[in-house]
C-alpha cells in the first residue's frame, strides 16, 4: 500500500505529542483518515499514474518484443563464432529465447495476478461445497486454474476442502488442474510453440484433471487418507470479512506477483533455455526421430518416466518443448513429457504425504499418468 499507510501513521505519531485532552479527538480523526484512505481511494491522481504506468509498460514490452530477432542476431554476431555452426545456432536460440520468455512470463504473471485477485481458496471452497458431485469436477478444474494458492499451503487447503464436505475426487480435480493447466505454461506454449499446440494442451490438460478426479472419486479412496485426517474435526469455515479491493489494488497485486515469481523462476528459465539451445544446436534430427518419434511405441511411457522425477517450473520446460518439437519430436510424446514434468512433481508428493498414505499417492500418480499416456498415444496415432 506504499504511500497510503504513511499518512495515518504520521498523523498518529504527531497525535501522541499533543496534550491528553485532545487525544481522543485526534484519534477519531486518525480512524477516519485511515477509513477514507483504505476504502475509498479518492486519490485519483495516483490512480491515473498507475493506469498510465501499466499502459506504458505494456507498450514498451510490446515494442521490445518486436525487436527480439534483430537483437539475438546482433548479440550472436558479437561473439567469435560462425552463425551457422552448431554453437552459433545454440547461442542465437539462447539470445532469442531468454528475453522473449522473460517478457512473456512477466506479462502472463501480471495478468494472472490481477485476474486471480477476484478469487481465493475460501471463495472456491464455498462454491464447491454447495455443488453436486458431477458438476463439481469441471468447476473444480476451472477454479484450480483461477484460484491463487501456493503449493506450500496445499495441506491446509486439502484438509479444508475435504472437511467442508467437498468430495475427495473433486478436490483432486482441483489439485491436478492448478499446475497442469497453469497460465504460465499455457501462455508460454502459445507464445513459443503456437496456438494450435496450446489449445490442444488446454483441452487435454482440463480433461485429464476432470476425468482423473472423477475416477478417483469412484474408487472410494477416503480410507487411504492418513489416520489423523480422517479423524480430525477441523473447525468450520471461518467467515473472513471481505477485503475491498480497488482496481489499483489489483494492479499492485499483479506487480507484487511479478516481483515474487519472476525473481524465483528466472533461473529455471535460463536452465531450460540452455538445454533447449543445446538440443536446437547439436542434436541431429535423425536421432530425435529415433528417440522421440511417433514410431517407437515406448517413446510415450519413456517420456513420462523421464518427466515425473524432473522438477522444474512450467517456464523452464516450455523452451525445451519448443526445441524438441522444432527438431521433429512427435507431438504426443512431447505433450506427455511436458505434462508429467509439470503436473506430477516429487516435491508436491512429499508435501501431500502429510495427508495421503503412500498407497493413495501411488494411485494418484497412476491415474494421472494413465491420462497422460492416453493423450500421448492419441496424438502420436492421429498425427
Amino acid at each position: 500500500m506504499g504511500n497510503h499507510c504513511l499518512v495515518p501513521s504520521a498523523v498518529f505519531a504527531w497525535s501522541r505529542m499533543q496534550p491528553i485532552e485532545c487525544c481522543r479527538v485526534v484519534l477519531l480523526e486518525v480512524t477516519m483518515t485511515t477509513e477514507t484512505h483504505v476504502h475509498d481511494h479518492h486519490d485519483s491522481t495516483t490512480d491515473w499514474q498507475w493506469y498510465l504506468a501499466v499502459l506504458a509498460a505494456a507498450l514498451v514490452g510490446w515494442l521490445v518484443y518486436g525487436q527480439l530477432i534483430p537483437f539475438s542476431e546482433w548479440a550472436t554476431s558479437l561473439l567469435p563464432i560462425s552463425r551457422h555452426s552448431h554453437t552459433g545456432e545454440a547461442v542465437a536460440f539462447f539470445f532469442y529465447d531468454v528475453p522473449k520468455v522473460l517478457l512473456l512470463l512477466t506479462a502472463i504473471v501480471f495478468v494472472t495476478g490481477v485476474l486471480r485477485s477476484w478469487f481465493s481458496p475460501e471463495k472456491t471452497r464455498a462454491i464447491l461445497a454447495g455443488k453436486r458431485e458431477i458438476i463439481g469436477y469441471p468447476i473444480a478444474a476451472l477454479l484450480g486454474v483461477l484460484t491463487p494458492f501456493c503449493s506450500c499451503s496445499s495441506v491446509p487447503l486439502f484438509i479444508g476442502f475435504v472437511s467442508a464436505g467437498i468430495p475427495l475426487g473433486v478436490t483432486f480435480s482441483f489439485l491436478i488442474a492448478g499446475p497442469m493447466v497453469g497460465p504460465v505454461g499455457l501462455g508460454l506454449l502459445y507464445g513459443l510453440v503456437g496456438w494450435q499446440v496450446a489449445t490442444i494442451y488446454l483441452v487435454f490438460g482440463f480433461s485429464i484433471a476432470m476425468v482423473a478426479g472423477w475416477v478417483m472419486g469412484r474408487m472410494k479412496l477416503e480410507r487411504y487418507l492418513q489416520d489423523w485426517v480422517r479423524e480430525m474435526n477441523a473447525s468450520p469455515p471461518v467467515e473472513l470479512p471481505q477485503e475491498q479491493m480497488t482496481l489499483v489494488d489489483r494492479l499492485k497485486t499483479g506487480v507484487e506477483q511479478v516481483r515474487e515469481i519472476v525473481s524465483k523462476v528466472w533461473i529455471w528459465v535460463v536452465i531450460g533455455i540452455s538445454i533447449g539451445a543445446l538440443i536446437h544446436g547439436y542434436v541431429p534430427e535423425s536421432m530425435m526421430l529415433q528417440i522421440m518419434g511417433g514410431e517407437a511405441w515406448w517413446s510415450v511411457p519413456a517420456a513420462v518416466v523421464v518427466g515425473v522425477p524432473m522438477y522444474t517450473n512450467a517456464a523452464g520446460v516450455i523452451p525445451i518443448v519448443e526445441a524438441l518439437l522444432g527438431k521433429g519430436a512427435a507431438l504426443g510424446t512431447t505433450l506427455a513429457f511436458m505434462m508429467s514434468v509439470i503436473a506430477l512433481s516429487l516435491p508436491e508428493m512429499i508435501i501431500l504425504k502429510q495427508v495421503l498414505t503412500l498407497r493413495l499417492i501411488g494411485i494418484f500418480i497412476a491415474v494421472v499418468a494413465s491420462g497422460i499416456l492416453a493423450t500421448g498415444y492419441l496424438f502420436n496415432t492421429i498425427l
Partner: protein
Amino acid sequence: MKNVKIYGPGCTRCDKTEVLVKEAAARLGIDVDVEKISDARSIAMAGVISTPGLAIDGKLVHAGGLPDAARLDDWLSA
C-alpha cells in the same frame, strides 16, 4: 497484551508477516505476543486454508498473502 497467531508452514511470506506485525505493533506502541504456528494439522484445525493466516486474540482476521499495512494497524488497535 495482544496475542497474535501467524499460521503458515514457514514460507517467506509468513516470516514477512511476522515482521510486519511486529513493526506495526512497535509503531503503534501496542504490546504483542507473536506466535507462529507451522504445523499443518494445527493450521487446518484453526480453519485456515490459505496461508499466511492471521488471528488476533483468537479471532481470524486475514488469510492468504501479506496483510495490508493500514488494515493491520486497524486490527491491532481495535
